[in-house]
């Protein structure tokens, strides 16, 4: 470990102080209008324990699959400086009556390869890893994430991939780099995860948070939103 890493060690092992502003020590859990948490109760407990937070629950009105519900979730989440856990829409009864409780064992963490996003999610991922949670990081390439001066395949791409992993990989997490539509890529990988962890800017304008909105609409596991620091 070099000097930088060690100097940040204490910071890495605790949640950011800003989380405790406004809603001290609380993980806000947003659900469907019924407030039903279904099979996610144990996962919520796991997550709150890892983060060292209590949990508050709020139902958000809206119908399953509707953009209106996603917009409402985004607006409410943007008001909260701390982490927000958005449960998949459960305004309808679960299809399987006695579906097993989901525990927090595997987390999918998309990242956009910016320093800010990685710095924001790193402490949370480290806390999760310390409790034995497997972390899979996913980067979906885009013109914004690939340098404009892109020499192409071969040595350049290899050097870029190597450095991308070295900069953004958290502990023993796996790191996958892929192309395509970000929300679709996240939805595909989310089938093998219990939780999606995403960083966002808490900006609610329609043209912003596009990936967060799309992911909220398509994945059927909880999404933890972390504000970019």
């Amino acid at each position: 470990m070099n000097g930088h890493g060690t100097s940040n060690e204490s910071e890495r092992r605790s949640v950011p102080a800003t989380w405790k502003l406004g809603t001290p020590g609380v993980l806000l859990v947003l659900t469907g209008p019924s407030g039903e948490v279904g099979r996610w109760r144990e996962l919520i407990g796991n997550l709150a324990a890892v983060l060292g937070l209590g949990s508050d629950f709020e139902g958000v009105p809206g119908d399953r699959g509707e953009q209106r519900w996603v917009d409402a979730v985004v607006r409410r989440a943007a008001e909260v400086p701390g982490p927000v856990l958005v449960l998949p829409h459960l305004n309808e009864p679960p299809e399987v009556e006695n579906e097993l409780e989901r525990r927090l064992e595997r987390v999918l963490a998309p990242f956009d390869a910016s320093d800010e996003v990685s710095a924001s999610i790193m402490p949370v991922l480290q806390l999760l890893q310390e409790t034995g949670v497997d972390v899979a990081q996913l980067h979906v390439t885009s013109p914004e994430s690939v340098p404009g001066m892109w020499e192409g395949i071969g040595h350049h791409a290899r050097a870029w991939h190597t450095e991308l992993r070295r900069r953004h990989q958290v502990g023993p997490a796996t790191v996958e780099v892929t192309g395509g539509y970000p929300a679709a890529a996240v939805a595909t990988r989310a089938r093998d995860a219990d939780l999606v962890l995403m960083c966002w800017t808490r900006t609610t304008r329609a043209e912003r948070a596009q990936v967060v909105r799309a992911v909220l609409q398509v994945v059927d596991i909880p999404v933890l939103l972390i504000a970019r620091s």
Partner: protein
Amino acid sequence: MRALPADPAWQFVVEGGSDMRLRVEESWLTTADGSVGTRGSVEEDGVESDPLTLAAGVYNEGQSLLEVPSWATLSDAPILPVGRRVLDLRDGVLWREAIGEDSAARIDSARFACLARPGVGVLVAEVTGRRVAASMVPPTIDAAKPAPAEASTEVTEVSPRRGGNVLRAMRTTKRPAPDASVNIVVRVAVHDAASRRRPARAEIDARLEEAWHTGPAGLLVEQRRAWGQRWERADVEVVGDPELTRVIRFGLFHLMASVPGRGAAAVGARGLTGRAYSGHVFWDADVFVLPFLAATDPPAARAMLEYRIRRLAAARRAAAAEGHTGARFPWESATDGSDVTPRAGLDEHGNEVPILTGRLEEHISADVAWAAWRFAAWGGRWAFLDGAGGDLVVDPARYWSSRVRLDEKGAAHIDGVIGPDEYHEDVDDNAFTNVMASWNLYRAAELCRRQRGPDAAGEADRLEQVADHLVTGYDPTTGLYEQFAGYKHLEPLLVAPLGTVPFAADVLLGRGRVARSQLIKQADALMLHHMVPDITAAASLAPNLDFYLPRTCHGSSLSPSIHAGLLARVGRVEEARSLLELAAHIDVDDLTGTTAGGLHVANFGGIWQALIHGFAGVVVSRPDDEVLRVEPRLPGEWKELRIRLSWHGRNLELRCQPSALHVSTDRPLVVEVAGTRVQVDPPGRWVS
């Protein structure tokens, strides 16, 4: 000892340090002596950094540059924030001041790679648990000459089963200062690296004894003298833009530090600053790096050509294997001169895709010939071309003469190649490849006639005949070179509606779409105007710039500098300056996302060429040039462009001003400015 230079134009300062940029900073702060380079990792660095030492031209069994653990690591040093680091470009010394967060611990260090003694590294560090100071205080190198009895010596050998060998002997002392508050660490490391032989222990022990006896202070004196002499012949200053001057010097420093002045110099794409590109040698070395050295450090340029001369046999075998005569140089080269280009690689998404450059990017053979000629042209050295260097020109020409296809009308074509613009693969009659081949054939014919007497006249005639019949893609009605056969029929996309440069068109649009469009990655047809303007069509630079520049994405680090030089030549100096700035910031701003793997040393050579041939308007074409042509064109904010270089055995300083030129020289020469020839005698004069 002297304090740090007061002039910020000679300092590259890195404050603080960033987790995300850690390895980028290490590349920036590499110290090297041409033979051995050590990344600028802090003394206590570990797993998140790349504290590497690399030896020029020494590869492992997989033909990647052999990696040696850094000699500058202090395993028992306290872990501190990175602190403030200053690379003194004038002396080649890296300074560091690091203070613990509680101010209880501190490291002040200085290290350098001895330019006067390649392979020798020196580190002096003061490590303290109590000392607190507000300003940067250089370690007391003068007082740090320990008695041999205190020293411990460690020998390291990195010697893979096949491949090169590096042997290092390193002596370290640690002793407390008189008040016991500070530990003074002195280390001298001596490296012997060889690609084929096993370094001799006795020899390296003797070198270590000698360096240790000289001591850090004595070695520092040598260091300052050696770097002073280098800068005396190579400095560039843009008066009126100190920041640009600083970044230019940063690049020149790393260029000079990347090439040994003797033997055979394998100059990899990232020099000695990192492991990216595996240390392989591309056209970057011949076309971008070598001209700077030909004009400022001829022995180093000669060593680069020696690398090619020693691999001529392999290039001849490669040509013969394809049924051709002459020599075909490999696109990527390492130890033995065989082609080491990977056959497949990753795209941006991590998918494996085939790499065709090793098979198809053939212009490298003409580039090697051009480098040999360029070396001779800068120095007025017919003797080089009459001797060993001549084969570097003639053998590739023979390859081209057997490589071409003659059509039914007698026209010669080169099918199935990749030009510098790698967006378009497997194309026919790439203008750059064909015109460079043509230039190569003409120069080889000239050498045949010159060196080899009447018997070679027949070969000279044959080579010229092929050159005469090679299609160039030039259309006199438009003044354009068509980049390759059929290019003009591709989708006429321009960059501006899509984004701003640099622009990863292949990522945004997909490789297939880009291949079907006129978007190009870097200078291709325009590269001719940079390299062989004497055989491009008269007045064709401006129309080709007008056409190709809006289609150029600058996806390659080799692109902006070349365009900057060409734009300056046609008087578009503000656009030229803008692209020069872009080139100058490629590594400083990590524009490729790969500076962590090393610096783009060829870009530094491109920047130098843009300044010399573009802004200063220096024209160098033949060994028997009788005059030095100079025609400065400066942006408005530049008060003066000062350049030191050598030409035909004369050490010169050019002071280019917006409407005046002063030439200083140590021997008489004739300078031509705007068509007027002026005799210049030492020490020099204003010539316009």
